[in-house]
């Protein structure tokens, strides 16, 4: 248990200052190289002397590995190595694992004794080209002893189920029930309890670029250098050093731009470990670049896969009292992040409503599937969907209007502490709702809905959902699940170094960050420009590798912009402090008589006496003897910015503390038509209003809202990793894993509301995940609204034509 208990919120900030750069939709500084085809992605870094690895994947969902015949593969000209899982277990330790019991649900880069899902790697070949490596894969003979497989999470939890990890003696990797607030009283006093069972099937980020790594091992220094499109470097990826059996300061992981992530590259360590292992074994530079089938079947980043049994305790007038949630989450064959996804749920479990109590029972089931990882929302989007389904069901059962029932339960006073202990820092939910209904032309579409049903027999539905988008996670959400956590970590820092060169030009160094489609360079450039009154296009932003980088956690939970803002601010304070004292010395005045303005320090009341940052910098760089003895040459500073608002959970876990304090909010209003003969769903209109505090680059955030909504459309209607009863992955390529095209995504009418956070620089909150955190809930609501006259309600995602038609048939409508 940690020694220090931080109490209280950070100071409330004054956001009244006029901003010059923050809030401008400038062109992104990153763009030119990508537009010119010089992006420098990992696959672009292959050199003629690089060897290529290919992984042999298991065709069985569950099987013992009996025997390998690798001689023919090794004999193929151009093949340099064949490493089986058994040998890999000697060369490498298990993968870094934040799960509940890594010693007993051990995860390795290649399966050693048995395979646990279709697609799990069992061997790797290294050859002169990927073509040859794949030729060699076909020459490897593997004898398997198939075992019974389990792919249904409830069956996995039932007695007698095949065990995914015998050492665990169960397929339940974690089970616990939490009570927050007075659940018993709220349910006892309720007029009615709304009940439902809901099923959310797994989808995943599936960026167009897969994960890849290029590794070199230097036997002289015993060091690995690995270029890979992972996005988290210094703070946690150092654990990959242990996997590769080298000291941490002998592993340098270097960032490259990533072609999308959506969470799936947050901690992309397995390809790096495989490439590293192969580099050390062959003594050569080795690239392991996943192909699409590797990535779909073996990526370690499938999304949430949940069965919910929920009860919502209500008063007849629509007041929400309490929530009881029983959720089973199918984690697949490993559980690298533990049940952290449920921490994301608990951060905003009551949504924007004054629900007073919550019971949360979570069971993590292991099955013969690829494991879960991170997918935009990280489990909070599922909670949003579940809660909004319950609210709409409550509205229907109580005969209340779905907009009115939400409005009457809105939280209005901030900061607001929800039953779990987390805080919502600020918000104005009414304003967002009203704006969304206006942009969504709600009244018009209600009229249209009626007219189209009566006159043309068409089924049009409108969804109105109001939900939260939390940002900036604390480390506590990964361990407050245990009374005696093994590693109760409390650091989730982000660091920035700012260097002012002798000409006054500024370079910002980022440490656990890479570019993945968000715009960290543009964010930092705008933030630095705001601090120093320069142009964002004059700021140089570089990414630093892991070995000698400052502590930094990387993107996740929409934390990056807020944390970079804090780090930039902190480094800027230090630089301005030194610059002020230097300017004071040069101007022969006391530091207190100077004020920062227009890119330099000037004497208060005598603005002609001034020194620009450039003038100060050249002196500090080159003219040491012009300053007092204690002044060091140069003008640079770093800030390690730790999470600004984390409080510890109580010992009894009835209060989890503050762990996700900067909470935004959104309202989505889609209008859909359901073709009840085919189960096809089309969009007639879609309005989305988001409030994630002050926006650094509004156009950029709007782009993330549209993109996130597009992924939400995929989750709601098209995308699913389908495993059949025998454990075969049926959607193993893009032919069957269906990503929305431009014709499936409507034009979005986007509105922004900005309720600043009182606690962050400029009042920024994170918002990159928001679109996907809302869309599945909104679209399900719209479909249900369309089919309500037929007595049909969908409670399972994705709402494929098959599921919609089956529901219609079950309700007596021929399909």
């Amino acid at each position: 248990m940690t020694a220090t208990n931080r109490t209280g919120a950070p100071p409330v900030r004054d956001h009244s200052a006029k901003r010059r750069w923050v809030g401008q939709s400038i062109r992104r500084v990153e763009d030119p190289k990508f537009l010119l085809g010089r992006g420098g992605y990992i696959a672009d870094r292959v050199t003629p002397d690089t060897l290529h690895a290919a992984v042999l994947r298991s065709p069985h969902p569950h099987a013992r590995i009996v025997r390998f015949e690798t001689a023919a593969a090794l004999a193929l000209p151009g093949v340099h190595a064949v490493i089986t899982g058994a040998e890999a277990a000697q060369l490498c330790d298990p993968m870094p694992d934040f799960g509940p019991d890594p010693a007993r649900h051990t995860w390795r880069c290649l399966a050693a004794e048995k395979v646990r899902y279709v697609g799990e790697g069992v061997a790797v070949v290294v050859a002169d080209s990927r073509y040859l490596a794949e030729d060699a894969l076909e020459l490897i003979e593997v004898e398997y002893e198939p075992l019974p497989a389990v792919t249904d999470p409830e069956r996995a939890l039932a007695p007698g189920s095949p065990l995914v990890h015998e050492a665990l003696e169960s397929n339940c990797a974690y089970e616990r029930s939490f009570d927050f607030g007075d659940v018993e009283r709220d349910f006892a006093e309720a007029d009615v309890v709304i009940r439902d069972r809901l099923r959310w099937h797994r989808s995943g980020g599936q960026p167009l670029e897969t994960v890849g790594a290029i590794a070199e091992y230097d036997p002289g220094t015993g060091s690995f250098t690995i270029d890979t499109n992972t996005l988290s470097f210094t703070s946690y990826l150092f654990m990959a050093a242990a996997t590769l059996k080298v000291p941490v300061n002998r592993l340098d992981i270097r960032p490259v731009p990533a072609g999308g992530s959506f969470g799936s590259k947050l901690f992309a360590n397995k390809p790096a470990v495989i490439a590293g292992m192969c580099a050390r074994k062959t003594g050569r530079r080795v690239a392991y670049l996943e192909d699409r089938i590797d990535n779909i079947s073996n990526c370690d980043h499938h999304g949430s896969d949940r069965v919910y049994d929920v009860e919502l305790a209500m008063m007849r007038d629509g007041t929400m009292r309490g929530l009881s949630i029983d959720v089973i989450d199918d984690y697949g064959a490993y559980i690298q992040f533990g049940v952290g996804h449920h921490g994301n749920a608990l951060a905003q479990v009551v949504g924007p409503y004054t629900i007073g109590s919550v019971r949360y029972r979570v069971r993590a089931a292991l099955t013969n599937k690829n494991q879960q990882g991170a997918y935009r929302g990280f489990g909070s989007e599922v909670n949003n969907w579940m809660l909004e389904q319950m609210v709409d069901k409550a509205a229907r059962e109580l005969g209340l209007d779905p907009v009115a029932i939400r409005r009457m339960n809105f939280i209005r006073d901030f900061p607001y502490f929800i039953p779990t202990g987390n805080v919502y820092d600020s918000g104005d939910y009414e304003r967002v709702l009203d704006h969304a209904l206006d942009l969504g032309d709600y009244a018009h579409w209600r009229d249209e809905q009626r007219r189209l049903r009566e006159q043309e027999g068409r089924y049009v539905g409108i969804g109105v959902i109001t939900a939260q988008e939390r940002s900036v996670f604390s480390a506590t959400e990964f361990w407050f699940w245990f009374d005696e956590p093994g590693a109760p970590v409390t650091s989730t820092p982000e660091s920035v170094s700012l260097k002012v060169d002798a000409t006054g030009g500024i370079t910002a160094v980022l440490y656990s960050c890479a570019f993945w489609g968000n715009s960290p360079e543009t964010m930092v450039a705008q933030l630095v420009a705001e601090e120093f009154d320069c142009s964002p296009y004059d700021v140089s932003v570089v990414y630093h590798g892991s070995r000698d980088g400052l502590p930094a956690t990387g993107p996740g939970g929409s934390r990056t912009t807020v944390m970079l803002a804090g780090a930039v601010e902190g480094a800027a304070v230090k630089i301005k402090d030194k610059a002020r004292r230097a300017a004071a010395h040069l101007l022969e005045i006391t530091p207190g008589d100077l004020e920062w303005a227009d890119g330099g320090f000037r004497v208060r009341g005598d603005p002609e006496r001034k020194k620009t940052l450039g003038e100060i910098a050249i002196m500090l760089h080159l003219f040491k003897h012009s300053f007092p003895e204690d002044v060091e040459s140069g003008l640079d500073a770093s800030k390690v910015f730790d999470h600004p608002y984390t409080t510890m959970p109580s010992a009894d876990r009835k209060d989890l503390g503050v762990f996700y304090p900067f909470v935004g909010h959104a309202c989505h209003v889609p209008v859909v038509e359901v073709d009840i003969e085919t189960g096809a769903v089309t969009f007639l209109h879609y309005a989305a209003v988001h409030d994630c505090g002050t926006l650094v680059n509004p156009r950029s955030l709007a782009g993330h809202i549209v993109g996130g909504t597009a992924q939400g459309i995929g989750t709601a209607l098209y995308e699913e990793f389908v495993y059949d009863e025998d454990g075969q992955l049926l959607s193993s390529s893009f032919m069957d894993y269906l990503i929305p095209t431009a014709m499936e995504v409507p034009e979005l009418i986007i509105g922004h509301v900005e309720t600043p956070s009182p606690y962050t620089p400029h009042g920024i909150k994170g918002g990159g995940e928001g679109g996907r955190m809302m869309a599945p809930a909104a679209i399900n609501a719209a479909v249900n609204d369309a089919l309500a006259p037929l007595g049909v309600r969908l409670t399972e995602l994705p709402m494929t034509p098959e599921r919609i038609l089956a529901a219609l048939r079950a309700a007596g409508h021929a399909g």
Partner: protein
Amino acid sequence: MAPETRTISLTVNGQPHVAQVEPRRLLVDFLREDLGLPGTHIGCEHGVCGTCTVLLNGASIRSCIILAVQADGADISTVEGLAQGGEMHPLQDEFSEKQGLQCGYCTPGMLMRACEILAENPDPSPGQVREAIASNLCRCTGYQFITEAVISAAARMRATKEEAAP
């Protein structure tokens, strides 16, 4: 025994090339590795996502499901050939202006497809653009700002043409 190779001659971005390739070498790998043009990216290698789109004799093709030997005698255009004399093509510039890219991975293929779209129809409606770019998946943008970029690039290209030949 070294694998059998074929000789192919083709033009890429206006430059003639003669090369020896294995028949099984995919065009995308030939462009990226043999010709040092890594701007064309690989997304799926089964012809669904369109990330690898280039123009072959002016028509868009998916270079991950075309063999290099099938491009013998062809005139190929890739993203590297779009900018001329240090100036970006209007499509490239408008993609930046409208933020029609986020991670940039689908962007080269999308740009080449957009070239073909505008060559066939210099004045498309947003609906027509959206339907035409449905051939190329984007996982980041949700397609809206891409559509806006193509529309505004089209307007610029029409204006330039009118100025040149009133």
